[in-house]
């Protein structure tokens, strides 16, 4: 820990750690990466992301990059998108992929679950009207299949349609003939992915981010450290998350 305390920018990390639940070490690693991506500038722009070579062949690249510039993912009740993001925003978006701690209660787990699903939902709901319409859903599937050429394009529609029908039948049960299913609301989205166990899937190891740091520090220490900080950070998440969910509650 001694090495960490002498790390640069320690005080500002405290704030970030509380906000995002990352450990100092994780923040340091991410900061390094941030600087690397932004070429030592203060902010990241879209074209920075687009230059990441590994991302180039990701079929949903546009959506992933979009998520970083989406105000809804900053846990601040904002809407719309921004042109460039600072390190804090970068970190907050990343924090959606933090694994849940073992010591969480059911309620906290549910909170994490909602949060992660909300992130996914926001990625689909591009126009931010609280529903994923068929058009939007089709777009998602099309993007997913965008690497498979014309064949994919053709089938994407029917897959999205079938999926949408499934949602309608799961969430609405019975509908009158003249009713119209507008799209997937967040509540329906929750119900839809009920058995999906997102809280145990949408996770990334934030330690040993790159090989240099991996050898510098023992991962075990960091892990214990981070779990201690997760405990600390729970209240802050709980404070924030109702606010985030509030506008979509109705």
């Amino acid at each position, binding site marked *: 820990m001694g090495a960490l305390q002498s790390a640069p920018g320690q005080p500002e990390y405290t704030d970030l750690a509380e906000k995002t639940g990352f450990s100092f070490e994780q923040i340091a690693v991410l900061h390094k990466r941030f600087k690397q991506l932004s070429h030592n500038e203060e902010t990241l722009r879209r074209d920075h992301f687009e230059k990441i070579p590994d991302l180039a062949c990701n079929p949903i690249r546009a959506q992933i990059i979009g998520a970083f510039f989406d105000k809804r993912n900053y846990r601040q009740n904002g809407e719309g998108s921004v042109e460039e993001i600072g390190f804090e925003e970068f970190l907050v978006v990343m924090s959606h992929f933090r694994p849940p701690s073992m010591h969480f209660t059911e309620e906290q787990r549910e909170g994490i679950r909602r949060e992660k699903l909300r992130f996914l939902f926001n990625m689909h709901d591009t126009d931010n009207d609280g529903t994923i319409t068929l058009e939007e859903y089709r777009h998602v599937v099309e993007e997913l299949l965008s690497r*498979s050429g014309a064949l994919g394009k053709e089938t994407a529609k029917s897959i999205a*349609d079938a999926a949408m029908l499934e949602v309608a039948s799961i969430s609405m049960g019975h509908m009158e*003939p003249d009713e119209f299913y507008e799209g997937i609301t967040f509540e329906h989205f929750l119900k839809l992915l009920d058995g999906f166990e997102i809280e145990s899937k949408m996770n990334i190891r934030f330690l040993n981010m790159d090989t240099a740091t991996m050898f510098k520090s023992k991962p075990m220490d960091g892990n214990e450290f981070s779990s201690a900080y997760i405990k600390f950070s729970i209240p802050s998440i709980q404070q924030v998350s109702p606010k985030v969910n509030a506008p979509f509650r109705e």
Partner: protein
Amino acid sequence: MPTGSGWLSPAGSGRSLPGRGLLLLTVLVLLEGTVFRLGAASTPDVSGHDTKDHHKATAIGHNSTKKAFPVLDLDYGHIQTPFEISLWVLLASLMKLGFHLIPRLSGIVPESCLLIVVGLLVGGLIKIAGEKVPPVLDSRLFFLCLLPPIILDAGYFLPIRPFMENLGTILIFAVVGTLWNAFFIGGLLYAVCQIQTGNSSELNGLGLLPCLLFGSIISAVDPVAVLAVFEEIHINELLHILVFGESLLNDAVTVVLYHLFEEYSGVGTVTVMDGFLGIISFLVVALGGVLVGAIYGILAAFTSRFTSHTRVIEPLFVFVYSYIAYLSAEMFHLSGIMALIACGAVMRPYVEANISHKSHTTIKYFLKMWSSVSETLIFIFLGVATVDGPHFWNWTFVTVTVILCLVARVIGVVGLTYIINKFRIVKLTTKDQFIIAYGGLRGAIAFSLGFLLKEDHFPERNMFLTAIITVIFFTVFVQGMTIKPLVELLAVKKKQEAKRSINEEIHTQFLDHLLTGIEDICGHYGHHHWKDKLNRFNKKYVKKCLIAGERSKEPQLIAFYHKMEMKQAIQLVESGGGVKMPSAMPSTVSMQNIQPKKLPPPKTVERALPQLPKGREEEIRKILRSNLQRTRQRLHSYNRHTLVADPYEDGFDKFILKKQKIIELENKIKEMNNYLTVPAAPTDSPTMSRARLASDPQAFSVKPDSDSVPIIQVDLASPQSPDTVNVMDEFRRADQEENQGLMMRCPRGPSEPKKSEDTEGARDQQKLMRCLSDPGPSADEDEDEPFLP
């Protein structure tokens, strides 16, 4: 509850009666078997003598004439072995049948326990009959015949995704855990033997190496026993794959330890060098097994690429290649189990893309059938062998073994989880640890390995066998029976229903890409990154080599979608949907005919139905039905006689011809109808329109686009059942594509189809019909005849 049970009880006893009858029957069969077997040792001679005497007598009687032709001859020895094998298999199957006829029994006692009890009874009967119990659970038989089907079944249907995600944990449990168990049990047993030297002389001569050998035999969790118990308790996927994966992968460790200790217990000393060689040997055995399996798996996949003209032997390749993989691995004393697992897991995705749907079903059923019969036989044989075996009961040894097994398992799991949890994203909870520890069942592999020991080499063999059997019985009976209540008591998460929805598949894919993307942004090459790389490599090169035709380019999501559609169609037919809708066609149509890439583009526009007078509609339906039925019959006969000669194409051509005729007919009807009924006065139509809306899975987004046509309001009369409409509806569909200009739209454009319970069937039918109505390019050409004025 009391009233319920009171009401139920007569029915229950009534139902269990056939069960009892069956049980009685099986016992009878069994007795018969024993009598035959009783004969087996002596009969050949006796009967042989009899007949010979008889012959001799006749020969003497007609001294000069030649021997009379024997009209009826008895030669049991001739058929003895296969006959007895068949009897055993029959017994096993009947037992399995019987247990599931008795409703309550299977809920309480796991099948494996019941089967062992049956085995004990059979063994007892044979013994009472005064016969020598046949050495049924012979190690050769077990390892060469009984074990492979179970392992292949497990390997072929291995849930790859959870397995790979938890591979690290599984490997640690399988390798380190088994090593720990072996040395802990072996070492402490030796210590106990040293202490006990004073009062029991049998334990006196027990050296360290035999103890360690015993420890390595007894420490491995058994896949057969684990499968048998875990299949019944429906535990969540994570725990299932952890325990089951461990039981599969620890085979390599067991094999190496077994051979190592067996080799050196003769010599008496082990040097450091031997230990080192042992480690190398372990790597060779494990990786070699995987390699052998993978090679044969790829070969099988490659072979299946060319089987499109001889569909009937497709399943055979899967079985034979896997079995050869197993045998090849065993030949070099590599881990046969790992070879089988690797072979099954490697070949499956490619083979499945290549073979026909029917072959896939065949493979599935064959594997399930073989493995379940094998499993049943193993447990029965275990019971029989228990009665048969020369036992040497040593209280100290047996008790200490059982206790040590439990203790070692608990310490091993808890200790290893402590380490593993540091590296896992999803931590293992205390409950999980308990179930993993408690699920460590031992089984027939341990017994067979013990059986393989040579008596002159190991004078303690009988004592070992007794202890092994005791441990097996303890784990299977005590733990196997209590694990289900414990799982419920602890409220361990159960398995989700296996059916995956299309939405979940979409999101699984989406999440995969998302996580890969985030990892890339982090600049961290985690396992999502490598998985993605592997996937891309697979898609780019491997699939092209191993999968024939277009399907190699099909992305996973599309493949899943097609599979789902296919499944639904088949389900529909099996559930009797074919009765209502006069086409049981899909039973003769296979995946090849449907041409997956040629799915019709989704119809985003609603179509209206012309009104049909009820009488006329009935008439049309009759025509349609008779036509389709005739086609079906003809196809059926084709199928039966010329299975190999690709009956599909011929049959399907006919079907297409028929269909075209029907469409023509239909068009005429529609023509008339348009004259007759479009301007008709609106009548009520909710049932109809709902049925129609719901019957089309594609038609729910009817947002009027810019290119859409003006809506003609047509109301629908005659609230018929959805089925009656569907048939025609569907045939019309192709035409409508070309005639969008004249499309009639439903009253309220942007309405979604609703799916309720009663319309679900209709939807399924629709899917099925869509499969059928799109037989390929040839159909389209003839459909654009003008049919509207």
